[in-house]
């Protein structure tokens, strides 16, 4: 239960955020940083147990009948992710408080941000495949709200929809894969599935499962060719980019692959797909990062590169590759989040993110500069930072790759060299050199905003120094448990150490740094060349996707034009004809035509006869009315008489509802009809015959059905149950109401939700029509 509370605490905070935030605006950042900080401390208490090699399952049941439970698994993999999410979350919340201080919608922002944190925690901690899917989709939705936060901007909305549709499609495929797994193994609980890996590998369903799960992972983690949503997502406010689109949400796909490794990994298909896609993504990302001059776009490209590298390492799948992946994951989170925050700080402090316009900010923004330098050195992979340790491990893994070693090593060198260049672009170009003119006079940002990058940069240094010691905790508490979770057994070799001696990996690192420095030096000349590759790496895929979506939309438009002509009478005609056929065909085939006399012998009262005659008179009046007023009154007469019939048969609630609904319907119809012209024109004889036949036939059908129903034995079972249970269990004597609000309460809740939504929709449609009309009349007035 405590674990469940820990995970959903973000949702609870999110529910109150819109009210609290405007009231605590100056300290909102510090306030919201408290929750992730507390969660970080709490999760850290699990470290010793996980380091000892134990994994634990917590949680509660949810819908045990279909095997869906809210259970959570704490092992090396999930704990590391949880610590990253909460730790970086602390920094981001504080940062966001400073970045969004002036924004009027700051309450909504923190609501979505907290909801995202809870959803992400749910994804990485979840022990049940189906609840993992639920949290996965929740991250997609909160990401959509956050990317499209500046909803007045068309580009933001577009980027948000792109991300949502892509990750949503992938998520749906992933669910299909999960359901097949549940069907094969009989359970959706990960702890059990991971134990019995053989069942899936041996069955014939391995390939479909793998492809479906990969669809989910690749779309979420922006792998080629689904990578193009990530640069678009940079439309979001920078705290969002720092949190979601660098350190956490995009890692969800990588997490999924890592989590599924014991069950799906190790086969040739796995290795081929992951290594191939990962390497291509890595190169594509590295190229994209040098194509652009906007700092955030550069960082987006480098994020794609890192995600590709992680997937590639998962594909290689050797023990050292998995250790490298674990280490690099942490490394990347630390420096990427920090650099994004620096980018946002530069934007805040100078008003621009274009590299061409930035220079010499070292003196004006010293604390931001410090954070940038620390993070960039880690990114470039220079000792003694943890980035160096991560890079060494990657090269070590590539050198021992079972296949395609040369290609992988060359790709690795290229990608890492480009990262060195990017590090230089971010830490050196804006801060050294002459102070340039910027839209806003350059000034340092408040403490809330520089403390995050500085802290993360220092952690990168401290972690790196820690690995210099033997038996260091980075190895025992983070990398080893993570690798163990992925491999299903403890790794044999294995220390993560700062210095391994003069070996090939070190040589490769030196070569990388050299190439990287050269690329950085000549970047201004190389950049247009890179930008020319835009069509191949970026716009091409995006255009393909846009064409696909446009195709779907135009098909939907054609189909709607065909089926929804806009004429109300045509819809009614189709409905009546269909109901007539659907009821009468089985009726006659079933031989239910025989309606025996007893129905006609049942007693009746004179007032019922009078009411029926009034109803018939009203119906005839409706048909023959020449004025709207007469039409409305006749309709009302029919309705009220039916209500009186209900009274005659002893159904007061029903009668009251009918009276009120009839009154309101009459008002509604009146409101519409008074604005519609009185004279419609004459209808042809043929169409009047057709309408008459249809209406008459429909009426006849209804009459036959009601007569036949009167023949049936009426089982008193339900009546007796409700008569007894209504007072005994539900404390009420009005059975109708008790059924509505108690026995079938969830039904009613669904109905009122539909009502509320329909009301909003009607309001929107009416206002849309009205504003269109106003625009038209205004244009006519102007052109006249």
């Amino acid at each position, binding site marked *: 239960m405590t674990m469940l509370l820990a995970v959903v605490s973000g949702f609870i905070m999110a529910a109150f955020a819109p009210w609290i935030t405007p009231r605590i605006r100056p300290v909102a950042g510090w306030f919201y940083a408290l929750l992730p900080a507390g969660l970080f401390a709490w999760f850290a208490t699990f470290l010793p147990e996980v380091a000892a090699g134990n994994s634990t399952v917590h949680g509660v049941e949810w819908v045990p009948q279909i095997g869906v439970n809210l259970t959570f698994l704490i092992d090396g993999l999930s704990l590391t992710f949880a610590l990253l999410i909460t730790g970086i979350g602390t920094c981001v919340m504080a940062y966001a408080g400073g970045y969004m201080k002036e924004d009027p919608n700051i309450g909504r922002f923190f609501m979505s941000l907290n909801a995202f944190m809870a959803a992400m925690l749910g994804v990485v901690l979840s022990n049940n495949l189906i609840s993992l899917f639920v949290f996965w989709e929740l991250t997609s939705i909160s990401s959509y709200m956050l990317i499209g936060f500046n909803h007045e901007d068309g580009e933001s909305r577009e980027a948000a929809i792109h991300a949502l549709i892509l990750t949503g499609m992938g998520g749906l495929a992933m669910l299909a894969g999960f359901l097949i797994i549940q069907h094969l193994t009989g359970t959706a609980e990960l702890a059990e599935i991971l134990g019995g890996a053989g069942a899936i590998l041996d069955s014939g369903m391995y390939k479909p499962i793998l492809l479906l799960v990969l669809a989910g992972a690749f779309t979420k983690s922006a792998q080629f060719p689904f990578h193009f949503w990530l640069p678009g997502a940079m439309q979001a406010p920078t705290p969002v980019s720092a949190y979601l689109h660098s350190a956490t949400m995009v890692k969800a796909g990588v997490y999924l692959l890592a989590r599924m490794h014991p069950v799906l990994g190790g086969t040739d298909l796995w290795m081929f797909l992951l290594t191939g896609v990962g390497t291509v993504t890595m190169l594509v990302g590295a190229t994209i990062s040098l194509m652009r001059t906007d700092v955030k776009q550069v960082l987006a490209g480098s994020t794609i590169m890192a995600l590709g590298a992680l997937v590639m390492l998962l594909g290689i799948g050797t023990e050292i590759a998995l250790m490298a992946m674990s280490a690099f994951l942490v490394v990347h989170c630390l420096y990427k989040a920090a650099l994004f925050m620096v980018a946002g700080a530069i934007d805040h402090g100078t008003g621009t993110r274009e590299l061409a316009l930035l220079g010499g900010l070292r003196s004006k923004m010293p604390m931001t500069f410090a954070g940038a330098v620390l993070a960039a050195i880690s990114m470039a992979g220079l000792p003694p930072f943890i980035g160096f340790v991560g890079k060494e491990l990657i090269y070590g893994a590539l050198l021992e790759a079972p296949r395609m070693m040369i290609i992988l090593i060359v790709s690795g060198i290229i990608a890492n060299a480009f990262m060195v260049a990017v590090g230089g672009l971010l830490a050196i170009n804006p801060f050294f050199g002459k102070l340039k003119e910027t839209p806003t006079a350059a000034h340092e940002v408040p403490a809330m905003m520089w403390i995050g990058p500085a802290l993360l940069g220092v952690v990168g240094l401290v972690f790196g120094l820690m690995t210099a010691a033997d038996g260091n905790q980075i190895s025992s508490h983070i990398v080893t448990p993570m690798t163990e979770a992925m491999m299903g057994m403890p790794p044999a070799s294995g220390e993560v150490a700062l210095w391994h001696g003069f070996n090939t990996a070190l040589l490769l690192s030196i070569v990388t740094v050299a190439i990287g420095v050269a690329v950085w030096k000549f970047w201004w000349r190389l950049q247009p060349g890179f930008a020319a590759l835009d069509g191949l790496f970026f716009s091409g895929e995006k255009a393909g996707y846009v064409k696909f979506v446009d195709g779907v939309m135009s098909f939907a438009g054609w189909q709607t034009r065909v089926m929804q002509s806009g004429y109300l009478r045509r819809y009614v005609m189709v409905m009546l004809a269909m109901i007539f056929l659907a009821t009468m065909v089985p009726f006659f085939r079933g031989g239910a035509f025989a309606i025996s006399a007893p129905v006609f012998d049942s007693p009746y009262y004179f007032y019922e006869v009078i009411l029926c005659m009034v109803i018939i008179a009203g119906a005839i009046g409706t048909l023959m009315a020449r004025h709207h007023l007469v039409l409305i009154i006749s309709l009302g007469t029919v309705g009220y008489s039916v209500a009186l019939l209900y009274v005659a048969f002893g159904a*007061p*609630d029903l009668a*009251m*509802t009918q009276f*009120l*609904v009839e*009154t*309101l319907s009459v*008002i*509604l119809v009146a*409101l*519409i009809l008074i*604005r*519609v012209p009185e004279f419609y024109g004459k209808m042809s004889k043929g169409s009047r015959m057709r309408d008459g036949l249809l209406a008459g036939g429909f009426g006849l059908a209804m009459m036959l059905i009601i007569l036949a129903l009167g023949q049936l034995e009426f089982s008193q079972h339900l009546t007796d149950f409700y008569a007894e249970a209504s007072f005994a269990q*539900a*404390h*009420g*004597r*009005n059975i*109708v*109401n*008790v059924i*509505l*609000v*108690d026995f079938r*309460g*969830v039904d*009613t*809740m669904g109905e*009122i*939700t539909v*009502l*509320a939504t*329909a*009301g*909003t929709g*009607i*309001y929107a449609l*009416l*206002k849309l*029509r*009205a504003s269109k*009309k106003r625009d038209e009349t205004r244009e006519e007035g102007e052109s006249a």
Partner: protein
Amino acid sequence: MNSLILKTGARFLVPLMVLFSLFLLWRGHNLPGGGFIGGLFAATAFCLYAIAFTPAEARKIVIIDPRSISGLGVLFAITAGLIGLLSGQPFMTGVWLDIPTLDGPVGVGTPLIFDIGVYLVVIGFTLTTLLTLDEEPL
């Protein structure tokens, strides 16, 4: 509509009708009535006011935006369900209290909160639709 009789009549009838709708709401569990009927009745009352005067005036006496009323109603309904959840039972289980009164203990429970939610949603939906239709030229 510019009818003095209607205006005067509405001024007296509307408060009475709203009171009656509340009465229908509260008696619903044991006698004919309930949330739906009460809500429709209250909505009819405000519609009468809107016809006698103008929709803008009706909006003024409703005070809260009808869309917010329907949202509030859904919130009430979900809260009623959550109370059942908090007492350790499945969602939407009825939780009852016995309130001592002069005539003996009276049962008050979460179905009442749920019914109030239904009441508010019906008012909200009906007023949104009718008032907007009345205001906007089609």
